[in-house]
């Protein structure tokens, strides 16, 4: 076990693991700061992929690994982010580093993390943990979703690494050797915010083609919400709606689809740089995050109305279709408002960042 490494839980696995690694080498950075500097906020309505319940996949943050890489680049970290061709190579390097007292971040499939509760055993091959020690064939795992330090056998770790599924990162390991003592926070923040705004607000010329990305993606999502009862029935409809809401709130977002985490970042930035403009902007995005939370609550209530048994669906739909669709239309309008609000917010945020 690497004694100097401090295991801390976090809202999100990638930001939490990155923070833990950076804290370990002496940079006292917080999770919101890692998320903000990593240009975390995003929205992708991936209509061409399917979640387990056949609803299209919605990503609320930039692609896995991006926050880590952005932070390494922005903060001038001396370290490595590397994908290995084989699990054996990755494991050998990880063992060497752990034995040298260097904690290793790994991107693994959550399905094999046996210390997590059963409902979390899903094939999500983009889960970030830190390997903070080993005892023979058992690894000590610092998982931001698990309060005590987890234990994982070498066999399970190999399975969790060696995944060729979509979005998997191919035996990724990352580690930090050192970070500079001084940082030009104004320049770093301006750059990170600029990138976030670019990811969310696409140039007018490409918006049509990338209707599933950023603000355009949010608008598309709001439009598609009203078609859910047409496209899905029974348990698929119920679970799809419930999973969407759970995804917004409890799947590592910190609540409010990462918007509260971003608000915390802007608050911290305002204090660090003594910039009052950011306080006001932070208040707005936090308020927006809280509204998103209320929206998720309504979505859950709606999903729960759908019966759990397939055979009960037709009778339910016969009697409840009109009120169900009305509620869904209202929620869809609410989500379209979110897109509009975020667009205006990001335009102002970009202007504020340019003044830094």
């Amino acid at each position: 076990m690497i004694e100097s490494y401090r295991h801390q839980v976090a809202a999100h696995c990638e930001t939490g693991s990155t923070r833990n690694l950076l804290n370990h080498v002496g940079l006292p950075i917080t999770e919101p700061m890692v998320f903000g500097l990593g240009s975390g906020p995003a929205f992708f309505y991936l209509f061409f992929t399917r979640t387990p319940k056949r609803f299209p996949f919605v990503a609320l943050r930039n692609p896995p690994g991006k926050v880590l890489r952005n932070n390494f680049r922005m903060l001038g970290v001396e370290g490595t982010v590397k994908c290995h061709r084989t699990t054996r190579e990755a494991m050998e390097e990880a063992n060497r580093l752990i034995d040298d007292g260097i904690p290793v971040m790994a991107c693994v499939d959550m399905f094999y993390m046996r210390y997590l509760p059963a409902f979390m055993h899903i094939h999500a091959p983009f889960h970030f943990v830190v390997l903070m020690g080993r005892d023979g064939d058992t690894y000590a795992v610092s998982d931001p979703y698990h309060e005590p330090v987890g234990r994982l056998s070498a066999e399970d770790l190999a399975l969790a690494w060696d995944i060729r599924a979509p979005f998997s990162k191919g035996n990724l390991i990352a580690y930090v050797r050192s970070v500079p003592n001084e940082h030009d926070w104004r320049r770093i923040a301006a750059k990170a915010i600029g990138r976030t705004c670019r990811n969310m607000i696409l140039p007018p010329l490409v918006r049509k083609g990338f209707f599933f990305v950023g603000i355009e993606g949010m608008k598309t999502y709001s439009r598609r919400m009203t078609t859910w009862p047409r496209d899905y029935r029974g348990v698929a409809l119920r679970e799809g709606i419930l999973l969407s809401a759970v995804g917004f709130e409890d799947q590592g977002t910190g609540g409010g689809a990462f918007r509260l985490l971003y608000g915390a970042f802007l608050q911290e930035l305002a204090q660090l740089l003594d910039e009052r403009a950011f306080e006001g902007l932070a208040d707005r995005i936090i308020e927006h995050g809280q509204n998103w939370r209320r929206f998720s609550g309504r979505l859950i209530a709606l999903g729960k109305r759908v019966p759990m048994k397939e055979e009960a669906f037709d009778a339910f739909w016969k009697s409840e279709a009109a009120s169900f669709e009305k509620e869904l239309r209202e929620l869809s309008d609410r989500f379209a408002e979110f897109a509009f609000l975020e667009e205006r917010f990001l335009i102002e945020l970009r202007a504020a960042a340019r003044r830094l």
Partner: protein
Amino acid sequence: MIITGTRQRFEGGLRIIRYERNETGRCVPCLRPPETEAEIDIYYEQRDIDFKRLHGELCAGVMSPVGFFAAYFNMSPKDIAPMVGLSESTVGKHMSPRGFEKATIEILKRYARVFDISVADLFSFVFLHGDLDHEVHYLADRLMERVDVNRRPSQAQ
């Protein structure tokens, strides 16, 4: 596969970080149960219903054991194919009882890894009735398994 008489329940105790405003207006991390905690147990209940339905289909010969586990874990041939190194159409074939018969043991081992079961689990379903504890040990690279079944300590007394 070992099936106990009682359905799995979420016993709570899970806490996650959520960001919330404190009294000074700062947005701070709070460690507390998930907002959707009530939905977690519903998830287990739904899984139990799904299991019974799928097991019925498996016994009726509608699907193969591979099809059963894929449906149970909500995975499509598209999800499974890259993980077992086969084409989507081949995985699709293995999901039907007739196609399943053509799969080799080597391929079944790959499926076993994806579903986190043993090859033996593809061929047998053991129902445990009563208050029994069990422990599964995979053997020979998941080809076989050893199951230790014991009475729960409170019952044994």
